[in-house]
């Protein structure tokens, strides 16, 4: 493994050198200050640490930094100014999909990843796409509804 890797983070090329077996989660939070990514379990089960890695919804707690060389990563901070985020944000607020908020940035990442691949998902497809993101407050239905609302809003290219 080379001493330095490069990857695109929130649209900008960045480099990282050092311990390549650190978790992507720790590097993004501690080195890059991206605190919108949360650690809920450290085992890849809860999705609070979700990031978009080459457009896929991936838990950053079980991804090693060494493995992202040449990849494109987006965190919640990097999508905040997009029109897709604006639609999702409105939809989550309207649907009452937010309670304690700890899972929410990860849910937004999972939703965006789904809608980019499938702009008109069925309920079952949404359930599948969110199956790696846990929410203990909402019971999930209101999050599923938020994604349905976002998909139905139109006027935005996913």
């Amino acid at each position, binding site marked *: 493994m080379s001493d330095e890797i490069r990857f695109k983070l929130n649209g900008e090329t960045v480099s990282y050198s050092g311990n390549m077996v650190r978790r992507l989660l720790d590097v993004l939070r501690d080195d890059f200050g991206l*605190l919108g990514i949360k*650690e809920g379990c450290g085992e890849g*089960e809860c999705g609070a640490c979700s990031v978009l890695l080459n457009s896929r919804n991936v838990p950053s707690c079980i991804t090693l930094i060494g493995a992202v060389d040449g990849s494109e990563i987006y965190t919640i901070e990097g999508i905040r100014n997009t029109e897709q985020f604006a639609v999702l944000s409105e939809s989550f607020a309207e649907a009452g999909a937010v309670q*304690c*908020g700890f899972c929410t940035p990860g849910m937004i990442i999972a939703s965006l990843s789904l809608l980019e691949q499938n702009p008109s998902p069925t309920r079952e497809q949404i359930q599948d796409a969110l199956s790696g993101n846990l929410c*203990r407050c909402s*019971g*999930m*239905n209101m999050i599923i509804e938020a994604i349905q609302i976002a998909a139905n809003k139109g006027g935005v290219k996913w």
Partner: protein
Amino acid sequence: MNEKISESIVRVDAHTKIGGQTKYVGDMKFDGMLYAKTVRSLHPRAKILSIDIPDIPDGYFIVDKNDVPGKNRVKILIYDQPFFAEGAVNYIGEPILLVVGPDRDIISQIISQIDIEYEPLPAVLTIEDALLENSPRIYGQDNCFVSHEYIKGEPDDAFANADKIIDGEYRTGYQEQLYIEPQGVIGIYENHRMTIYGSMQCPYYAHRAIAEGLGWSEDKVRVIQTTTGGAFGGKEEYPSLLSGQVAFASLKTKKPVKLVFDRDEDIQTTTKRHPSVIHHRTALDSNGTIIAADIDIKFDAGAYAGLSDVVLQRGMFCASGVYNIPNLRVRGRAVATNTVPNGAFRGFGAPQAFFAMDMQIEKIARIIGINSLDFRLKHALKKGDRTCTDGLLRHDVKIPEMMSRIEELSDIRDKIKKFKSQTGRIRKGIGLSMFYHGCGFTGNGEEIIHGTATLRKYPDSKVEILTSNVEMGQGALTAMRKIVAKSLEIPIEDVIYENPDTSRVPDSGPTVASRTTVIVGGLLKSAADELKQRWNEPGEIEVSKTYHHPKYIEWNQETMHGDAYPTYSWGINVVEVEVDTLTYEITPKKVWAIFDVGVPIDERMMRGQIEGGIVQGLGYGSIEVMENIGGKIQQGTITDYTIPTAKDVPEIVSEMLDNPYEYGPFGAKCSGELTLIGAAPALAAAVENALEIEINKIPVRPEELLEKMEL
């Protein structure tokens, strides 16, 4: 704000949470901050013979019992578990010491080199073991932290005259809160003062516990709640232990110290819902009417008392469910075992009690051959009836209306018949549960706390809410603002409500017992009404209100007689399931739910409570399996302890029915815990219907269903 209070608005905290801008305790950093990790007991019960600490690098510290300047006991109801073990441990995972320093990897290396020598002692690991005459005594004379009994009417006479007596024994398992944000606190010692930031429900609980542990006066301690990523009771009493630990660590190191749990550590060592064994004995007359019940409740408290006394009391005050039983004996015991201490969890003793009562009702109806829906309605409480503790139900009980509506929505009456005697691989079933939740603290709790809430109007006409109640996802920041804004007829944007800081807010009591809206919201409503009268006074205006029960409340804590709660919220749930008779997997297909919470402060936030509570209840009844074998939690990771995911949730149809409470703000009663109670018993009743068997234990596990079916 001219519309009805219940009309939904977008939560005030929605957008910052969606954007990931909200800071939780794990996101906070302070100059020179150190990290802490806990070294824990590996034995359920043992003496600590020696602790061998390796040479540790500069800048790293061991913090243990010798670093507790005050009392090394966490003040909860009594002086309880030690902050750090004192020569003995009583459960696997009990904290012994902290390793503190700047680098978490080096902390882990130090921990791996610490050698603790134990002398194992005979341990008590189950309720049954604890109550054996020859078992080791681990608490008092009888291994019970508390034993209570109350009697209503003349149960002995009624049993003597009974036509039929029916027994049933019911068991419930652990449930882990599994808030997605793990436990976390930061302690900062500066200028002879201690400040704690933490994810918690009860800043003043932590405040008192820290002051006692430090041996300081309370005015030198400050607790600031950080936005809390879910709690469900799990951050009621538990953060007091952690707050003390980081306070001692910061006092020793003179640096900020952060302690955030790993998920596994959180699952294995924090408080959970009490497992229970509940025995019902029900007496019927010749008309098939219940004339008496004898109910014995045993909760596994774990190794320390914690809140078990009051959890048990709430369970006892729900023992006979929503049914009017004139003669009653209820006994309750919180049993000591060498297992992780159990504590507060949404429902607080009620889910166990309602499960047992509902299953017993189904059993009786089956035995005497009557439709269980009619049997329930025949015995349902109504206004003017006496509660289990002989209190008077002064407010309307709308069970008949709720029942007819849920029958209409779910078609349960016909489906129960239709689902009998199925033969295919996949079998459908439908079941119902009826339940209540007493609003606010149990018994005389509110009269002990006397919560105070304050409103402060600034010269720019902004109004600040000052209470110690926290946002933990349930929507307090929005609900309380709505109450104040609507009362004052001002825009909600003009109402300020920050996360509580004990140096700024009065003690309005903890954020527990579904009391925030009904009790503290009620105080804010009356403060706002007064402020409105005084609105044009010059300068800053401050109005404080302190809670007193409505005058009608009569309660005797000694005999447990009278009004255990000032009022009640009510619910009926119906769950329809499919059971696969090859795998015995249970799939909830649809849920219908009706609630009377007085008047909801926000319909959409209330729906959030309903959806979340029901799904947590479905998990409690089915997939959330946690066992303790040999004192060790067997499902100690989030991979092994499964909670419902997006793929597991059924459609939930819910409605609310207005039934205003005159002492609640805008008629609101309690709502947060109520919503969890009914799903598990309704699911269990649905499995009974699908398979024509008797369920007496939750979670209902496929392997146990298979065994029952093969009998």
